[in-house]
């Protein structure tokens, strides 16, 4: 099953059949998918990997881990400073780029380009709406919503650190609630500012990358790998070093983004377990977290071996079900009527404040704009190769209009609902019991972000059950991320092949778990996460170029 390509290229000359009239606009290139691949045999394992992307990515990642472990004290501040420098000096650029991506997506949505079908006019979707949506949501931000759903609205509502959005008045000062009108104004600003970070902008970033990848693979016939997007700009050169560098950077951002989130996420999950089950000092040693990493990696391994349909899709659907259950529960036992009426107000506030919040210049709310918005934008952008590639993988057969509706508009509504229910309930607790509320203790008087969700749940009935469900959700979201991430890295490092031997996926899953565990034990998680977020800046430039390539590519497609 392993030795191929070289000899087969002679038996299968590149006499690609002419494309049936008008189905799609195939790009005419002599490059064949997998032509740079090598097929070494390591023990009984046959591999099929892109040379040099696979080797370089592996070596660069390993080197970074070793250097970080060896020179923690020097490397840690270096990367954290770098990230700080990028988000504070280039905040205007990140915000501007974010706005551009939203405008490009909305423009494509309403223009005739929306009629283009990914995979050509006759393609049919591989997945049902429910399965498709569950997967793209799990990959895109499932884990983030768990972590920030309570934290962020409460933080903006009562931050004592002076980094409130748009420098508006906060709703609670020194443990004393402001007057009702001011509280309501602060609540609306907090919700609008939160939805802004989880709404159109992040999804537009993912949509641009995913749509470009899908278009250039399914319609243009180029390999499913990040470099293909840049064919209209670099031409045949993308098959050489410019393309190698783009792909290696994508692997780097994906692997470090995933491994460091896995490490930090394991610490948060074990903090949650300690809180729910009353185990004091669970995070005094790394034992619990390392066990969690091993469990998550083991589950991801099983999921990877079960493939897209039997693995990621099933897990995403389970998670979707659990998340809806948890959300419905909080809605019902929380202030139901208040939340339902607030939802429309929150959405209204989001749309009326979006101009002010996304304005890149002449603002004074540095703490919010640089510390939160620019950081988030860099973060979404650094994740975009991974999430975009995964979304592209499952979106064949959809029209561009369907795609943007389901990847941009519907997720924005879902995020708004989620934030309304989780954040709204938490702010309601804050208004009712002020400094006695658990969220006040975890977000405002002290800052223990990983416990904010559990604090909110602890004041509702059945807290032990809901907190356990929340922990399961966090773990399973990590499993789906680890699984889909390995799938993506494997595809990129196999030069766009999706039928490479399964041992390669197994390698990436385990490698990611090992990197996370090594950094957790040796230190340096936060430093390398800062490094991976820092890749957001070069990728932002790359994504602006991608917008141009995307529109140019869509223009030459038949719209049927």
């Amino acid at each position, binding site marked *: 099953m392993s030795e191929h*390509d070289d000899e087969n290229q002679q038996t299968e000359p590149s006499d*690609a*059949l002419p*494309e049936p009239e008008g189905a799609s606009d195939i790009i005419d290139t002599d490059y064949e998918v997998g032509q740079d691949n090598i097929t070494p045999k390591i023990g009984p394992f046959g591999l099929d990997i892109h040379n040099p992307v696979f080797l370089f990515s592996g070596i660069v990642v390993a080197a970074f881990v070793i250097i970080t472990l060896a020179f923690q004290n020097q490397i840690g501040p270096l990367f954290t400073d770098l990230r700080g420098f990028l988000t504070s000096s280039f905040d205007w650029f990140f915000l501007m780029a974010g706005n551009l991506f939203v405008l490009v997506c909305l423009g494509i949505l309403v223009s005739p380009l929306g009629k283009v079908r990914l995979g050509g006019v006759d393609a049919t979707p591989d997945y049902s709406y429910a399965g498709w949506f569950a997967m793209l949501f799990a990959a895109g931000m499932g884990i983030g919503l768990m972590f920030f759903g309570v934290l962020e609205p409460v933080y903006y509502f009562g931050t004592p650190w002076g980094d409130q959005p748009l420098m508006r008045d906060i709703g609670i000062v020194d443990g004393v609630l402001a007057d009702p009108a001011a509280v309501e104004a602060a609540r609306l600003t907090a919700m609008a500012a939160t939805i802004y970070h989880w709404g159109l902008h992040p999804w537009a970033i993912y949509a641009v990358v995913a749509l470009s990848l899908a278009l250039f*693979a399914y319609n243009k*016939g180029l390999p499913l790998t990040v470099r293909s997007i840049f064919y209209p700009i670099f031409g045949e050169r993308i098959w050489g070093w410019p393309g190698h560098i783009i792909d290696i950077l994508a692997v780097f951002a994906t692997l470090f983004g995933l491994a460091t989130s896995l490490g930090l996420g394991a610490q948060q999950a074990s903090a949650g377990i300690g809180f729910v089950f009353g185990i004091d000092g669970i995070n005094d040693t790394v034992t619990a977290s390392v066990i969690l990493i091993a469990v998550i990696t083991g589950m991801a391994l099983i999921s990877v071996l079960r*493939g897209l349909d039997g*693995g990621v899709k099933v897990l995403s659907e389970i998670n979707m079900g659990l998340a809806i259950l948890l959300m419905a529960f909080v809605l019902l036992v929380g202030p139901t009527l208040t939340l339902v009426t607030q939802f429309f107000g929150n959405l209204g506030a989001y749309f009326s404040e979006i101009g002010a919040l996304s304005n890149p210049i002449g603002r004074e709310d540095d703490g919010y704009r640089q510390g939160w918005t620019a950081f988030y934008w860099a973060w979404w952008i650094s994740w975009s190769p991974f999430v975009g590639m995964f979304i592209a993988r499952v979106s064949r057969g959809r029209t561009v209009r369907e795609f943007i509706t389901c990847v941009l508009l519907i997720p924005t509504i879902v995020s708004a609902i989620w934030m309304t229910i989780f954040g709204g309930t938490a702010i309601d607790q804050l208004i009712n019991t002020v400094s006695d509320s658990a969220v006040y203790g975890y977000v405002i008087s002290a800052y223990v972000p990983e416990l904010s969700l559990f604090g909110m749940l602890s004041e509702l009935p059945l807290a032990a059950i809901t907190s356990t469900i929340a922990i399961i959700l966090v773990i399973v979201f990590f499993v789906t991320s680890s699984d889909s991430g390995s799938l993506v890295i494997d595809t990129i490092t196999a030069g766009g092949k*999706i*039928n490479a031997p399964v041992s390669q996926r197994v390698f990436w899953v385990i490698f990611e778990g090992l990197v996370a565990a090594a950094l957790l034990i040796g230190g340096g998680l936060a430093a390398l996460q800062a490094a991976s977020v820092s890749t957001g800046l070069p990728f932002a430039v790359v994504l602006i170029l991608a917008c141009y390539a995307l529109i140019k590519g869509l223009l030459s497609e038949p719209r049927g």
Partner: protein
Amino acid sequence: MYRKVIFPVDLTHVDHLSKALQTALDLANHYKAEICFVGVTGTTPSALAHNPKEYEAKLRAFADEQGTAHGLKSSASARISPDPTIDTDKTLLAAIEDLGGDLVVMQTHAPTALDYVWAGHGDTIAARANVSVFLVR
């Protein structure tokens, strides 16, 4: 005895399949059976084809060529899988059932230690298909 011989084919490895192919053709000839070539392709571009449609055309051309050369009734069925690394066996089994084949002839490799962990495609088909399977090593 057999009416439809199914021959799963990986078009990238046709030159490795000569022994199995000859076996399938001979059996089809002997029983005056139809030979049906089944191929599984991913949704993304590969070295062989830009898209599933082009793959199907190539598979059909291959089937026609074999049918004409050996005076057999031949057909082709291209199956699309979003994740061929894992789902090839599942897709092939569904195709065998679907197409109503009563004999599968398949190329496989000599078992190695790894086959105890991950069986080859032929092993899995032989273990799970409801019809006769002839594995050629």
